[in-house]
């Protein structure tokens, strides 16, 4: 079938094309309408969202961490200061591949696993565009290496930050404590706002106790940045408020004397000013260099400290609970006088041992082993203190009974935390029948009262408690909470007063008299201390058993293992007529009190020399 021949019809074609062009115009208008509505959505409806986002791009709020307050001793010796330290931080928002950048950095400078671990942790808590610290304490060489390579690695920031520094290292380790990197638990409890930009916090000791004062208040600045992270200008600035400078009662010279006198032995010394409650020295040996902790101690260093048999991280002065031994005798003696059970003239027969009525067990006096007999046929209070007569106090304790003994000793602060302004303090034990029932669910046995009479048995005290009780004794009952803090930004702070210990003046005199005899009497247990002494010192020696000695067995210092030797203790105050210093000393496994007494002399000599100029 022949196809009909269709001819080109220009008019028809013009109509066809015209119609299609009109269709195209309609489609174009619709499409441009979509585009216009899209821009309308972005620019009008979602304007606020994008305006905020563009501001966030441009303006970064940078925290300005406050300078941590300085810590001084009573004479203005700097104990804790801040030193500039160079820190490498990364701004994760500016780094394409964090892994690669970290690897590149690791090729340039040393990065430990601990550094990386900490960085990863802090990365999670970081705010947008806030530099996250990677390495602290960059050396000159490392800074130079980074500077040369920085252009290849955007997002690297090297800046100086003030870091805590302890000029005296180990000497004040337990007195001050230290700061360290904020960990996760601390993070959870912190005021997040105020600690933005702060990487360190007081971990222990005075640094922790006064964290709020030392830290200060964070400041802020709004910075305009370009996309490459360069700060173009500071738009707004709220300066930080630096932490407050603390002056402590600590005396550098006294602390040093105590530290040197302890030497390489394990022990603790606490010295207080009974007039103020101020702590003049607090030494616990061995100590450690607190600077190690500032930037996160290495695992190796930390395990060395943690696993050492000498437990250097343990603050013996407030955490160490020791049997106070005979250092309790002045306090028990005062209890006896106050209770009216004894007078200074009352005497007790002393054969060198003591036996409870109706009991065959013999309680030995320490002198028995040396002299084969007692201190004297009849012993009065003065002699009982001077020569540390056990029999006298066995008898007194029995007559007082444990509960009354408890009630007389408690006001001195035994058995409870002193509430000193530092951390990790322990309460010690001041036993009573109730205490034993509650903690051990056992009745009190009469023999235990005898042990308590000479500060043994269940009785435990921290060196700080002993020092505080001695200060209370020295000030005839004035009882203050022991305090490190002397002044804040130069404004003095008073140590809070507690309920005083009341006793008749002649009773204080009698106890002082006995304690004076310890040092200055011919028969005193520490009479050798009075050699060349220019003031009057009151003291009391003590020896605490580390291992129990069976009935009938004799302790021979030469034969026991060093770690099983007795602890040597000594409490003292001076000058007798108007005491300005009270000390408590323990030397672990020192064998006896003679290990502790010379330390007291060194400490008190130093203090009194300083006092008189």
């Amino acid at each position, binding site marked *: 079938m022949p196809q009909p021949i269709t001819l080109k019809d*220009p008019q028809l074609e013009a109509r066809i094309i015209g119609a299609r062009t009109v269709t195209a*115009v309609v489609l174009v208008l619709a499409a441009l309408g979509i585009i216009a509505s899209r821009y309308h959505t972005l620019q009008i409806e979602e304007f606020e969202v994008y305006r905020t986002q563009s*501001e966030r791009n441009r303006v970064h709020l940078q925290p300005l961490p406050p300078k941590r307050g300085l810590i001084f001793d009573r004479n203005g010796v700097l104990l804790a200061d801040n030193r500039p330290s160079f820190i490498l931080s990364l701004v994760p928002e500016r780094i394409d591949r964090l892994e690669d950048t970290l690897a590149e950095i690791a090729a340039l400078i040393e990065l430990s696993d601990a550094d990386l671990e900490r960085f990863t942790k802090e990365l999670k808590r970081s705010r947008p565009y806030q530099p996250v610290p990677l390495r602290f304490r960059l050396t000159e060489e490392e800074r130079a290496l980074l500077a040369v390579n920085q252009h290849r690695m955007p997002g690297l920031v090297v800046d100086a930050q003030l870091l805590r520094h302890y000029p005296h290292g180990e000497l004040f380790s337990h007195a001050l404590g230290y700061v360290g990197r904020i960990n996760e638990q601390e993070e959870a409890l912190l005021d997040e706002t105020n600690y933005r930009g702060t990487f360190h916090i007081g971990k222990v000791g005075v640094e922790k106790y006064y964290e709020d004062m030392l830290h200060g208040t964070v400041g802020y600045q709004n910075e305009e940045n370009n996309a490459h992270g360069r700060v173009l200008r500071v738009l707004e600035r709220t300066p930080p408020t630096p932490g407050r400078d603390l002056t402590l009662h600590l005396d550098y010279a006294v602390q040093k004397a105590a530290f040197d006198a302890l030497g390489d032995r394990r022990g603790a010394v606490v010295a207080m000013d009974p007039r103020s409650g101020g702590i003049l020295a607090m030494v616990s040996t061995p100590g450690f260099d607190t600077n190690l902790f500032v930037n996160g101690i290495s695992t190796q260093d930390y395990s060395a400290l943690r696993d050492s048999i000498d437990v250097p991280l343990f603050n013996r002065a407030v955490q160490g609970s020791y049997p106070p031994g005979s250092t309790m005798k002045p306090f028990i003696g005062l209890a006896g006088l106050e209770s009216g059970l004894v007078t200074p003239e009352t005497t007790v027969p002393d054969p060198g041992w003591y036996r409870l009525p109706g009991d065959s067990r013999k309680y030995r006096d320490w002198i028995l082993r040396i002299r084969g007999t007692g201190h004297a046929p009849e012993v009065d209070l003065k002699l009982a203190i001077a020569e540390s007569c056990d029999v006298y106090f066995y008898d007194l304790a029995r007559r007082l009974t444990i509960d009354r003994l408890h009630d007389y000793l408690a006001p001195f602060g035994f058995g409870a935390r002193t509430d000193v302004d530092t951390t990790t303090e322990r309460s010690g034990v001041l036993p009573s029948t109730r205490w034993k029932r509650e903690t051990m669910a056992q009745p009190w046995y009469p023999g235990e009262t005898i042990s308590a009479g000479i500060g043994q048995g269940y009785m435990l005290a921290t060196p700080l408690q002993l020092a505080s009780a001695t200060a209370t004794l020295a000030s005839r009952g004035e009882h203050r909470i022991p305090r490190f803090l002397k002044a804040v930004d130069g404004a003095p702070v008073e140590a809070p007063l507690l309920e005083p210990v009341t006793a008749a003046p002649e009773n204080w005199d009698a106890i002082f008299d006995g304690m004076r005899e310890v040092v200055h009497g011919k028969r005193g247990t520490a009479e050798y201390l009075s050699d060349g002494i220019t003031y009057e010192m009151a003291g009391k020696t003590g020896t605490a058993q580390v291992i129990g000695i069976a009935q009938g067995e004799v302790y021979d210092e030469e034969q026991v293992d060093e770690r099983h030797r007795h602890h040597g203790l000594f409490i003292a105050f001076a000058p007798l007529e108007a005491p300005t210093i009270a000390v408590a000393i323990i030397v672990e496994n020192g064998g006896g009190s003679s290990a502790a007494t010379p330390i007291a002399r060194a400490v008190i000599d130093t203090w009194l020399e300083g006092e008189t100029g």
Partner: protein
Amino acid sequence: MSDYVRQMPHHGSRDMAQRPTAAMRFHIDVPLLLLLLALTGYGLFVLYSASGQNMGAVVRQGRFFVVAYIVMLVAAQFSPARYARWAPALYVLGLGLLVAVLFAGVGAKGAQRWLEIGGFRFQPAELMKLGVPMAVAWFLADRILPPQFLYVLGALLLLGLPSALILLQPDLGTALLIGSSGIFVLFVAGIGWRYIVGAGLLAIASAWPAWIFVLKDYQKQRILTLLNPESDKLGAGWNIIQSKTAIGSGGWDGKGWLHGTQSQLDFLPESHTDFIIAVLAEEFGLRGVLTLMAIYLLILLRGFWIGMRAQTSFGRMMAGSLTLTFFVYIFVNMGMVAGLLPVVGVPLPLVSAGGTSVVTLMLGFGILMAISTEKRMVVS
């Protein structure tokens, strides 16, 4: 045959009566010229800000414009009939060069797009942006419209061949752009809606195989990034997040010329080229965007109007295709910067910095002017 159509009897006496204006004599479409001047002027203004207040960049672009305007005016002087005659030769030359690119081309980032002849770099695909619609229009102009199935196939072959060669470079964006410029000719030529609907269905049906077999990983990434820019904030998503932020933060009034923080502080990437609309939107606000769109719209309407008033089918189809292609540039660029479409390398026509595309576009407008100023023939 087309000559025959064009030489239909005309009433010479009426033509004689109307004295041609100077604009007519120099083949200048005055409204189009004014609109283009407004557009390029606006563009230079934005470019100064977008290039980081670099006067050098503005001068350079200005020089491109001068060259491009001259090219346009020269192109306007040839009659549409002559373009129709040149079309086959141009097409064959372009095809040859595209083949040459595949074998001897130079390029960067794994794509060969340029030919280097005597130190002069040149992108044959640019040539085909005009060559393809011209060839398809030439091919269809001799046929009875709407074209029969066989001629539709022929036209598809004409546009498909160069598109495929460009796809091999690979340059998906340009391939699609050139393919669609040919398809626009077919559309204007009045091919049946069944073809259009069928092609649309085919396109949807082939999306899945294309995803698996054709698209490269970086292309897939661009589409995924479009759907969820936050998934890759620092990588591919960065551009789109920053451009949306720039646009959105401009609001109605804009932040003021040279005061866009996103663009001036370098947060916006490619701010003087593909993403320049974001600078405009940030600094001049929605007001500025709508002003630009109004200029574009007027240009498009003028283009369509020229097409409808053209004397020959070739001219009508050519004008329709050129105008639609120009529109596609606008739509794709503005859509991509606003996060509506995936990121493809399409500049904002006559505003983005760049030389080649400006010259090609203005050449197109020159042809439009040629069509517009062709001697009126009154068809009885």
